[in-house]
């Protein structure tokens, strides 16, 4: 039981990060139909720039805030400088552009920062909390709480504000939204900004546990993408559930089967899910108009 709880909590922690990355994917995908492979780079930028700002002597909370703002600026720049000019390009071209952006951001991070691993001090120390025989890092709870707050805030924003309704309208039908006077360009830009901010916060929260370096983005993006697919792309609920499920499956297979094949299990399950339920857990099937 103790073992089970241990795997459960580590799965939940990792899953929360996957969920946030998947949520970022979903936001951008809904607003613009773009699969943003640079999503993992937002996580990397958030964590790594906090580390370096803190090393420069800026107090940690301020450093974290600046890092989030910086990442948001990068997200907005990505949209206006790379995605917007390529409007109307094929899906593959857009994927290639975001991959180019991801390589570019990684290359920049490698020059501006360095190639070493870095960590941040955990918010409430590193003495594990004993619970039911399992040891839980306080930072795990911080990650979970942070993820939960982000999800709730995002939901409030989308569901309760006029701007949020404009986001939904843009996602549902960009042309119709534009016709009723919504500045869809700004809305898509906004979704890139929010998505970058979420990624950055995820990166800052998880760095004390998993460490960070210039190249952590790729695998995170792949897993987040996979989580979004698992939940059914386009569904925010699906992204969160998909992320948590993926994190758990990974932790349990690493614990009970083989840690060597931890990453493999994630992709294997995704293949199986895609074959069995091609629209994901919460995705709606699309009827193709001929």
């Amino acid at each position, binding site marked *: 039981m103790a073992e089970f709880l241990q795997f459960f909590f580590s799965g939940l922690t990792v899953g929360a990060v996957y969920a946030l990355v998947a949520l970022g994917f979903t936001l951008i995908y809904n607003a613009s139909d773009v*699969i943003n492979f640079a999503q993992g780079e937002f996580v990397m930028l958030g964590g790594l720039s906090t580390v370096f700002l803190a090393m420069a002597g800026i107090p940690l909370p301020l450093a974290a805030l600046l890092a989030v703002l910086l990442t948001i600026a990068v997200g907005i720049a990505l949209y206006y400088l*790379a995605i917007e*000019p*390529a409007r109307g*390009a*094929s*899906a*593959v*071209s857009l*994927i*290639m*552009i975001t*991959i*180019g*952006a*991801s*390589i*570019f*951001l*990684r*290359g*920049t991070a*490698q*020059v501006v920062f360095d190639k070493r691993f870095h960590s941040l001090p955990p918010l409430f120390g590193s003495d594990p909390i004993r619970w039911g025989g399992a040891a839980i890092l306080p930072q795990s709870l911080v990650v979970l709480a942070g993820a939960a707050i982000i999800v709730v805030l995002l939901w409030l924003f989308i569901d309760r504000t006029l701007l949020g309704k404009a986001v939904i309208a843009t996602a549902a039908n960009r042309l119709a939204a534009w016709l009723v006077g919504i500045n869809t360009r700004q809305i898509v830009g906004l979704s890139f900004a929010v998505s970058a901010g979420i990624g950055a916060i995820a990166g800052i929260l998880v760095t004390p546990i998993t460490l960070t370096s210039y190249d952590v983005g*790729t695998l995170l993006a*792949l897993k987040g*993408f*996979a989580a979004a*697919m698992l939940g059914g*792309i386009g569904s925010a609920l699906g992204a969160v559930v998909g992320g948590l499920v993926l994190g758990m499956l990974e932790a349990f297979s690493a614990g009970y089967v083989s840690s*060597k*094949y931890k*990453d*493999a299990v994630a*992709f*294997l399950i*995704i*293949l199986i899910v*895609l*074959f069995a339920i*091609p629209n994901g857990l919460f995705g709606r099937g699309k009827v*193709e108009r*001929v």
Partner: protein
Amino acid sequence: MREPASHRLALLGALAVVIVLMPLIFPSAYYYRVGALVFIFALAAVGLNLLMGFAGQVSLGHAGFLGIGGYAMAIGPVHLGVPPWASLLAGAVISAVVAFIVGRPILRLKGHYLAVATLGLGVLIAIVLTNEASWTGGPDGMSVPRLVLFDWAVRGSQQWYWISAATFLVGAILAFNVIDSPTGRALRAIHDSEVAASVLGVDVARGKLAIFVISAVYASVAGSYLALINGHVTPDIAGFLRSIELAAMVVLGGMGSILGSLVGAAVLVVLPQTLTILHDYEHLVLGLILMGVMIFLRQGIVPSLAAAVSGRQT
């Protein structure tokens, strides 16, 4: 955009002339090596182009087949005592079988789902190659015995340049034949509209599967060559970034253009070689170029240039 049949012979002839003349301006053996790498990657890109450009099916996992071909060249001779030429064949057969088995369920998926499924397949192959250390040497990889054909040991970049160039030409000719075959016509119909094609009686699933298997074999053969020319193979050959690189070659050069695949491969092979001068800035510049080309030459280099040239004539 696509090479018309009447131009193909001229195109292949011109290519052959270029291949023969290029060495005249090569200052050192190193250039032969880069040339060989260009043709090897172009071969894989041509195969992938059949899938992406003609059948309209994206694959972000084709490096997995590159890996199968590459490791066949190492595992065959080292562990099983299979001669290299038979290992190359075995790699191609294994790739074809893997593609055949996973192809049907994978190709049923569309768009982004297809992208993630192929991506998952490629990553899985890379993970297996990394973890089965007793067979593959793990993350450090393993060395590949030299190719010996009829007591003639193939060595040196010069020989590989000619062999790769010849293989690429054969691959291009076969690709043209595939395009013109009934399956090829069916594929183009699938690309334009899957529904319309199936209404007309095209077996969409079979057509897509056939081209997936063919493209896997192209990648596998290219992987085997890559392993032989490097004399060493590591799991990186099957990695996600390699898959992206292959897809980028196709898109960069121009989807549906065989010549484009060669140009795309040339750009993405030669560029990093020259960028090593820039040391740490290599990735930064590479990412910028990839974004720039995709934004400003949306159709890919060759079709965009062709359109510009023909636009000027009229």
